[in-house]
């Protein structure tokens, strides 16, 4: 490891030194925004020809860009998907600020479904996919509810963890190996309604970026991916709104200016299944609560040319209850950020964020058995980051991040004086996670760009004043009582991230990357899909952090402006991968760590994608070949076994077409090898019932999965009307494929010696209609 660090530092020093004595250069910086909303266009591109070679930059999440160029006259081209490109000529004899507004293209409806920041070919990054809110909106949706994570699941290398679930696996990793950030705040429970919908209201989202394994050094904490979700800034020009009424939910968004340089956006969504249940002829169903809601809000302010501030907040909750039992769970997240431009080349950003996830379950089945149980977890953290364009071709980012984790695994028990069960409170887990990070983007000439990153992470367990238990042979062996607030154990890791991009001609590039990641918190769940009742637990003296290495390489090629082709291959190794012993008891288990069986993981794959950006039909076709295995002592006789996410073949097709000025049609189709499963191969009789005996873990597979979704959108345009609206008709699972959600095994009632298998499938053909409007 020390050798790698020395090599990185030497390389960086060499590149920086090489800058001495080069041309006089200046920085052009500014903001690229949309004329329609005044909002910054994240990922918008600026490019220029300098002495025959192309240089460029992509705007960040706020639409800000910076580009270092030699002195002289330059013709800058600003472009973004769905907007008309614009050329601006600048004479550079000093640093310049150039703010540009782009106009939406006339009759542009669908746009491009996946948009990279600039052309993927040229970006010095790989393993990255971006989706705009507009792109997500185009995809046919389950019950008409547009869903960020369902859209992500259509990308190569990403798969759903279960039919209908908003959990996802990236390159064979577990669903808890994905870091989900909403404006830098961690979202731990990203699903509503037992996982069928994600917590992200698409109307409040600006852009979604997925980093598959190769995460920039500014982020860390998960092995498989980073899903970075940026909320939308409010419209700075005028009061505007959007909303929709759908089959299961309605939503409304309002946005606008609230002063000079200040804008707001507020968005809400609620389901109303319980409204219909109140009309049920079954009186037991009438009092049932069954709903979820989301609230998003954000305020942005500009203080002069150099300072920006924002505060964004999210709150959401699910509630299910009848007269004898109930359950609620939900997230809250808030982030405040400030950025300051010290100069054209030097920008500092600071954010503080907090997030929480909690659930509560209760039952009232008699005075003695009435019980409740609650779990809560929260993060409070902050990050300071400096971005410095040291010279043309050398961009540096460095900073520090820290977070305090507080996980309360459980608190509850019997209710009332007559309760049979006592009340218990599991010890609260506290930890401090810190990281120093640095990222350098180095143009090495001849079309070669290096990305060098290093993250030094420290995870410290902090005593809560109670007992700290130590394991031996998976059983608690002895305890200590460190004083409250004391750090009783720490892990430190260096996490290098390296990437290289080599432009091959003007239309192609070869890229490679290596990334090491460390994960210090994980879900205590042995289900493949995850549930709202999952508790997270921390690395500790008994549970080492998960460590992963990913090596990837790819070739990217443009076929004009219409098509982009890419192929990426990767290999992954992981240690300390969390699994659990057979029949593990996880819910409400104070001695959870005894159930853990940490082991190794390995995976490899290839992702191929052809993307149509400007053809009559836009969208993409992708094929993923992916394998993923695990091995842990005490599981499957210590032999390697397929991970639950090992699906060798996945094909996705996404297509959008404007068939007229008023009609747009979209379709997506997915095929995936059935996921691994353990089936019974034998049976034995216990208490008059046949109990299965099993194959090795995950030796069999579910039937292959495939599904076609269709949608058609009718624009309801009226000349001169300020309110525009559309009707969206969608068919989820259009040909009614019965994809199993679960397969289980039964005995015939009349012939007890005959066993049979049954499948539960969640969805037949699911039609829906949604009315969307904007004003």
């Amino acid at each position, binding site marked *: 490891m020390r050798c790698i660090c020395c090599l990185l530092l030497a390389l960086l020093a060499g590149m920086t030194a090489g800058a001495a004595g080069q041309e006089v250069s200046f920085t052009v910086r500014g903001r690229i925004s949309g004329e329609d909303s005044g909002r910054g266009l994240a990922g918008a591109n600026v490019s220029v020809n300098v002495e025959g070679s192309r240089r460029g930059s992509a705007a960040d999440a706020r639409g800000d860009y910076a580009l270092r160029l030699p002195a002289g006259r330059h013709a800058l081209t600003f472009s973004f998907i769905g907007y008309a490109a614009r050329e601006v000529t600048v004479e550079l004899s000093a640093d310049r600020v150039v703010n540009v507004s782009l106009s939406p293209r006339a009759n542009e409806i669908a746009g491009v479904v996946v948009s990279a920041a600039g052309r993927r070919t040229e970006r010095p990054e790989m393993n990255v996919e971006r989706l705009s809110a507009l792109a997500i909106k185009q995809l046919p949706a389950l019950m008409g509810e547009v869903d960020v994570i369902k859209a992500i699941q259509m990308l190569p290398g990403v798969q759903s963890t279960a039919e209908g679930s908003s959990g996802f696996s990236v390159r064979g990793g577990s669903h808890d190996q994905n870091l989900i950030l909403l404006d830098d705040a961690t979202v731990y429970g990203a699903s509503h309604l037992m996982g069928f919908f994600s917590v992200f209201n698409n109307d409040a989202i600006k852009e979604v970026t997925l980093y598959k394994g190769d995460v920039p050094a500014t982020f860390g904490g998960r092995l498989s991916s980073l899903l970075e979700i940026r909320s939308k800034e409010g419209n700075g020009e005028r009061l505007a709104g959007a909303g929709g009424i759908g089959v299961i939910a309605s939503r409304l968004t309002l946005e606008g200016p609230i002063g000079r340089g200040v804008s707001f956006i507020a968005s809400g969504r609620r389901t109303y299944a319980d409204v219909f249940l109140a009309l049920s002829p079954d009186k037991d169903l009438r009092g049932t609560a069954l709903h979820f809601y989301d609230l998003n809000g954000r305020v942005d302010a500009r203080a002069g040319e150099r300072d920006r501030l924002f505060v964004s907040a999210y709150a959401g909750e699910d509630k299910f209850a009848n007269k004898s039992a109930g359950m609620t769970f939900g997230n809250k997240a808030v982030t405040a950020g400030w950025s300051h431009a010290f100069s054209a080349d030097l920008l500092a950003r600071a954010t503080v964020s907090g997030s929480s996830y909690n659930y509560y379950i209760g039952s009232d089945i008699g005075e003695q058995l009435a019980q409740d149980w609650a779990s809560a977890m929260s993060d409070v953290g902050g990050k300071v980051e400096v971005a410095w364009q040291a010279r043309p071709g050398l961009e540096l980012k460095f900073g520090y991040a820290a977070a305090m984790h507080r996980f309360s695994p459980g608190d509850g028990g019997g209710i009332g004086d007559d309760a049979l069960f006592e009340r218990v409170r599991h010890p609260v887990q506290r930890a401090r996670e810190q990281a120093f990070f640095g990222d350098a983007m180095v143009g090495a000439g001849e079309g070669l760009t290096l990305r060098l990153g290093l993250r030094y992470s420290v995870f410290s367990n902090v005593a809560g004043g109670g007992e700290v238990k130590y394991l031996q042979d998976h059983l608690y062996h002895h305890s200590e009582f460190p004083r409250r607030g004391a750090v009783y154990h720490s892990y430190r890791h260096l996490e290098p991230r390296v990437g290289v991009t080599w432009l091959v001609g003007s239309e192609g590039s070869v890229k490679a990357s290596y990334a090491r990641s460390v994960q210090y918190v994980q879900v205590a769940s042995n289900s493949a899909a995850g549930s709202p009742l999952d508790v997270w637990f921390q690395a500790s003296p008994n549970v080492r952090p998960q460590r992963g290495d990913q090596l990837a390489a790819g070739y990217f090629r443009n076929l004009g402006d219409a098509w982009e082709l890419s192929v990426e291959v990767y290999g992954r190794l992981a240690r300390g991968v969390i699994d659990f012993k057979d029949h593990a008891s996880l819910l409400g288990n104070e001695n959870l760590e005894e159930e853990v069986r940490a082991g190794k993981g390995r995976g490899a794959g290839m992702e191929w994608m052809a993307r149509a950006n400007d053809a009559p039909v836009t969208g993409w076709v992708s094929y993923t070949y992916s394998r993923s295995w695990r091995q842990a002592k005490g599981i499957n006789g210590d032999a390697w076994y397929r991970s639950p996410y090992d699906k060798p073949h996945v094909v996705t097709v996404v297509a959008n077409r404007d068939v007229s000025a008023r009609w747009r049609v979209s379709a997506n189709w997915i095929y995936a090898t059935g996921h691994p499963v353990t089936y019974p191969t034998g*049976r034995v009789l216990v208490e008059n019932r046949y109990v299965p005996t099993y194959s090795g873990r995950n030796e069999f597979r579910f039937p292959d999965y495939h599904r076609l979704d269709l949608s058609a959108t009718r624009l309801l345009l009226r000349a001169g009307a300020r309110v525009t609206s559309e009707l969206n008709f969608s068919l989820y699972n259009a040909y009614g494929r019965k994809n199993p959600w679960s397969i289980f095994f039964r005995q015939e009632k009349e012939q007890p010696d005959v066993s049979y298998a049954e499948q539960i499938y969640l969805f037949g053909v699911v039609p829906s209609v949604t009315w969307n409007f904007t004003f």
Partner: protein
Amino acid sequence: MMKFIPLILLLTACTERIDIRTGEATRQLFAYGYVTSDTTRHVVTISRATAYFATTPRAGISGAQVVIVTDSATYALAEVGEEAGVYCTDADVAGVPGEAYELVMMLDFDGDGAPEEYRASACMPLTSRIDSVALRHSTVFKNQVEVIGYGTLPDNEKNFMSFHLYRNGEHLTRSLEDFFVMDDTHFTSREMNGVLCQLLDQEEEESRLVAGDTVTLRVDVLSEEYARFIREAQQELRAANPIFGGPPANVFTNIRCTGGDGGARVSGFFAAFPTDSKSVIYR
């Protein structure tokens, strides 16, 4: 909260049979039996695992030598009845709480011509005391009669109880999924002052009560290992659930091949537990 899943899925979810082929079972010996505190014939069954989708009854194994050994006695089990692989003690045998029991079986399961030895041991927990039983119509569960127990739990370090019901002497909870195992990990005391032990569904003919019926509650106190075996076996009968369930797995066993070449796979359980029961007449 599992009851919410069907509620959520009621709009679209469906169930249907599916053709799954899982091949032949791995060759595996299975033994299951227990000694209770009742004076009766105690039974041990020995069989081999059959293919999951076989349509034949249990494949019992005859010809084994089976004994149960305590510190003070050895009880030979004889194969009785028409069904192969069912071995019983004499009818006057009763287990004693606190006493250790060892099951020893000798048979040639691996077919090499020489018998292997299989052993399992169990210690019988102390017994609970059931003072009385009451019946009441549930105000929470629709059309259910609650069976309420009063009594005292024993002084075992941890208690695991299973509750069985009889109606006029007919065993209503004879199948694995008909009873459940409760532990006293977080009980506030050892007193059972009206614990809900079982439910009788009045919409089902097989559990419906009429005035004058005698309902008997039997409480077994299980060892932690046997409770684990029963719970895991019950878990494997339930439908797998990708949201809340983990991967299926073979059930815990306490039977070991201690002699022969040890090559044969063996599973099952041998237990010892005390029982106590009380009856009430439904009015």
